């Protein structure tokens, strides 16, 4: 048996080398263990024991920038309870939601977490993981300053569970004026017929008529088509017990969606929403349907990873054809988890978020409008000024893709049915799958 081994270039007796290694190993074992053996609190070495732990998925772009500003204001006003930013990235919060679900299940909630206002929070409400915050609305007067339609759509069983920080609009048609000119499209389409005609002209001109991205953006497109076809009242009714998914209106909407798909780019599933928007910005596509965060991407600074385009010159917008006067809304909001470790600070945070200063600081940067109706319009760019005006008069239709009208499980089933439709293009099967999902959840 060989008694010597090579350790690098030195020849050492095998057993000596092995024993030395083992001793080093045991020594190394002790040190890290000693280092890690602290009592199990997060950040235990800090002097203050108050930290506002806020959980979100705002890790990039305007949202992260807006959040940073809010953190600055909070920390200045609350030096004894500094903000602890806990974020998890990954596609519109899917990783974050999973991690949050696990934390709540393990009874280690943050002080506040982000969620879309509306049905998306129902899972947490039903599992008794969030507190009703009617008292916060009362204390800070939110009920008076936020639109009644909004408040009623986020009330569940008579109670409110989150403070909306912003309002986004989903049913916007973005377009490139130069491309429209080249394709001899005289005006942005306002009706379905005009829309199809414009798409045909774009195709003839050799550009992608309608730029589309991965599956969730396709669901987003579908919801705007359904809202345009059905109108806000019938749309909202679909999500209630009496909702009729088998009627001809839904069939028409699904068929229109199918028509639109034939005017989109074949590699849609590999594109993010920004990639799709960029196709329009670069003149490779004529139209794109996306929420108004697209404006933030189009007009934001290059340093922030945006395109720094000029509104109305390099890009234009209008309501999705057929939905003018309807606001397909969604809202980022924050909650009060049960057993929040620093409840007083959490309550203060929510009061702060619903206040004018926070909303007028956050929203211009984020690219959305405040939920409050007393926004200082001067702070907002051209698109947002337009949106603020519309918000005052439009009828409300809650978004599906962004958690207003349907709880997560239903939205997931919808998405699964959509995924299958995208492969088979069978409207009949799609419609009956949607009806099945409705019956399952109401």
């Amino acid at each position: 048996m060989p008694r010597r081994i090579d350790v690098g270039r030195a020849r050492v007796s095998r057993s000596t080398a092995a024993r030395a290694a083992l001793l080093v190993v045991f020594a190394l074992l002790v040190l890290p263990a000693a280092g890690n053996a602290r009592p199990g609190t997060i950040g235990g070495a800090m002097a203050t024991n108050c930290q506002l732990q806020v959980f979100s998925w705002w890790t990039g772009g305007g949202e992260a920038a807006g959040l940073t500003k809010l953190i600055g204001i909070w920390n200045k006003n609350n030096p004894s309870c500094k903000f602890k930013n806990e974020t998890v990235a990954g596609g519109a919060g899917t990783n974050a939601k999973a991690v949050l679900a696990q934390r709540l299940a393990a009874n280690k909630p943050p002080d506040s977490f982000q969620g879309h206002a509306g049905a998306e929070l129902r899972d947490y409400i039903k599992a008794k993981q969030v507190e009703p915050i009617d008292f916060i609305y009362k204390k800070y007067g939110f009920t008076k300053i936020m639109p009644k339609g909004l408040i009623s759509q986020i009330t569940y069983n008579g109670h409110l569970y989150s403070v909306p920080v912003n309002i986004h609009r989903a049913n916007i048609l973005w377009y490139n004026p130069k491309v429209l000119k080249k394709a001899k499209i005289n005006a942005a389409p306002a009706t379905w017929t005009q829309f199809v005609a414009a798409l045909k002209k774009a195709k003839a001109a050799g550009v992608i008529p309608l730029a589309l991205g991965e599956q969730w953006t396709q669901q987003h497109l579908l919801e705007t088509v359904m809202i345009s076809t059905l109108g806000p009242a019938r749309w909202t009714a679909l999500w209630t017990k009496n909702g009729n998914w088998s009627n001809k209106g839904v069939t028409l909407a699904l068929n229109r969606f199918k028509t639109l798909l034939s005017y989109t780019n074949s590699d849609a599933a590999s594109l993010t929403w920004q990639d799709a928007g960029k196709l329009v910005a670069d003149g490779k596509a004529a139209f794109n349907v996306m929420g108004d965060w697209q404006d933030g991407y189009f007009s934001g600074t290059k340093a922030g990873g945006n395109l720094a385009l000029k509104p109305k010159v390099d890009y234009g917008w209008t309501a999705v054809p057929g939905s003018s006067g309807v606001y397909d809304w969604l809202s980022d909001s924050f909650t009060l988890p049960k057993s929040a470790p620093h409840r007083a600070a959490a309550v203060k945070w929510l009061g702060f978020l619903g206040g004018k200063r926070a909303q007028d600081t956050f929203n211009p940067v984020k690219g959305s409008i405040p939920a409050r109706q007393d926004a200082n319009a001067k702070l907002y760019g051209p698109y947002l000024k337009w949106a603020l005006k519309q918000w005052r008069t439009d009828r409300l239709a809650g978004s599906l893709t962004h958690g207003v009208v349907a709880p997560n499980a239903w939205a997931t089933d919808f998405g699964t049915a959509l995924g299958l439709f995208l492969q088979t293009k069978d409207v009949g099967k799609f419609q009956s799958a949607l009806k099945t999902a409705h019956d399952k959840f109401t």
Partner: protein
Amino acid sequence: MRNIRRWGPGLLLVSPSIVLVAVFVYGLIGWNVRVSLSDWRTAVQSSKWAGFAAYRDLNADLAWSENVHHLLGFTVTFIVGALLIGLTLAFLLEKGVRGEGFFRSVYLFPMAISFIAAGVVWRWLMNPAPGDRSTGLNVVFEKLHVGFLANQWYLGLDWGMSAMAMPAIWALSGYVMALYLAGFRGVPEELREAARMDGASEWRVYRHVVFPHLRPVTLSALIILGHISIKVFDLIVAIGGKQLVTQTPAVYMWILIYDARDYAKGAAIATLLLVGISLLIIPYLIYTVRSEQRV
């Protein structure tokens, strides 16, 4: 039968591991199976018996059969690809070449890169944009005048999941190569010489002397690759997200548990994956143990 004083200490030494595995593997598998048979279908925990309801739902779920097809496509391409390439590389190297160390390091190091990082770059490479928007490998094909090879990669309806297997093959062929290389070099040279003395051509030497020795390597490589394939999650999500077009059971399980909060159905998928794996590896394990006993 040796007495207990001989083998007792051995059992004692292994017992902490036995306990840990019993709790953290089998205990949790048991929890998982129990959940799959319960009525915990929403965010509110519930543990009433529901029989095979979740399994029935899964069976009726068209997305589930999509997932299974995707997994099969991915697994077959991944395993066959990694085995073939690993074997080829080992074959090229086994007789010794100049710069063997360099080549070995090159082939081995994709293993060092995490699937998330690999996903980031392969997503670029496998960009399915057509025509003048093409980029990634498609544009390379065009430049090399083999433009007909340009395709939709992971979005292709028929071969999409096979394309998805490419980063996985890239990451693990080196490991398979290392296994086969060790296998090749484990064949005693006397055996090869003897065959050559008998007048066998080099090819026949390989076929009748060397390759049979490689069977156990193939078997264990198959097991390791198979289990990686079934569990792979990071890579799929990094490239295709959670869309149905690239979905596999591991991804669907995530969606069910964390998005839809349908815990029983998600647990049912986990249980089915385990059952599927067991069907493969239990025979393998029995074969292993038996053949060792034979020796």
